[in-house]
């Protein structure tokens, strides 16, 4: 039941983001969206993911968007082309996807193919093989540790990418001659 209420809330916040034009309001709403998403994830028993989504989505994402807004502008201009073609495309894709969900298994069913093979193997053998009760941490760092090395490399690349793009003391009033600041 609370699942249902949170999902409706999420859809309402998204409708707000689609319709608004003031960028500051959109950024605040996107912080609220991340917060509702984190609560929903915790209701669905994904506590690690909910904690990460709350810290990253409602924390770091909002700070980054606000600092980018400070460096650019806070209002969107009026839209200059018609929105009919994108709307039609989106409705077509939506119809195809909803047609696809009729065959999916029910929410919370323990007999689905997802819960065969690998999931029960990790749940049974994690404490015996790695002495770590939190199965998500043991899978992330030990059983699938190579993927986590790749993920750390992705964060590292994003850090250097941002530093390379925005280093240097460019004043905002200095238009033209882009690229001299590196």
């Amino acid at each position, binding site marked *: 039941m609370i699942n249902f209420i949170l999902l*409706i809330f999420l859809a309402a916040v998204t409708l707000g983001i689609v319709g608004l034009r003031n960028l500051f309001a959109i950024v605040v709403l996107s912080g609220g969206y991340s917060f509702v*998403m984190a609560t929903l994830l915790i209701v669905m028993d*994904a506590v690690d*993911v909910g904690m990460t989504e709350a810290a*990253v989505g409602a924390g770091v994402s909002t700070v980054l968007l606000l600092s980018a807004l400070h460096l650019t502008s806070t209002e969107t201009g009026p839209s200059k082309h018609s929105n009919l073609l*994108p709307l039609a495309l989106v409705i077509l894709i939506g119809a195809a996807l909803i047609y696809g969900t009729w065959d999916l298994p029910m929410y919370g069913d323990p007999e689905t193919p997802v819960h065969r093979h690998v999931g029960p193997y*990790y749940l049974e053998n994690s404490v015996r093989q790695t002495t770590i009760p939190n199965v998500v941490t043991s899978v992330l760092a030990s059983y699938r540790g190579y993927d986590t090395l790749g993920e750390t490399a992705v964060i590292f690349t994003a850090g250097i990418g941002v530093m390379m793009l925005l280093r240097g003391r460019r004043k905002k009033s200095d238009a033209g001659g882009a690229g001299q600041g590196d």
Partner: protein
Amino acid sequence: MTDLLNQLNESLGHVNHWITIFLILAGLYIVVAKSNMIKKLVGLSIFQTSVYLLYISPGKIVGGTVPIISEGYAVYSNPLPHVLILTAIVVGVATLALGLAIVVRIKEAYGTIEEDNIYAQDWD
């Protein structure tokens, strides 16, 4: 009465998937139709978060609990989607940071972040 409840329960079983599809469509619509670059980035992040819902809702088992092995619990939700989505969240914030850095450079080079104005400046 039980018939109606059964039917309601059957259709409610898919509410997760329908709201996920609605979020996918909303994110896609913002990216394709709106012309402000920062709004497009917010739409892209909505698109990414809808995929988290898509992965984690099949992993939940009704009557199960958090996948941390402890005394007294026998049924746990599937931990594998949690691991995949942890990586996806962090990759999402990395993409957002780089996208915002590029938008700041575009603003300094063109003076505007509306896509229509940038096309007009490039093709006139």
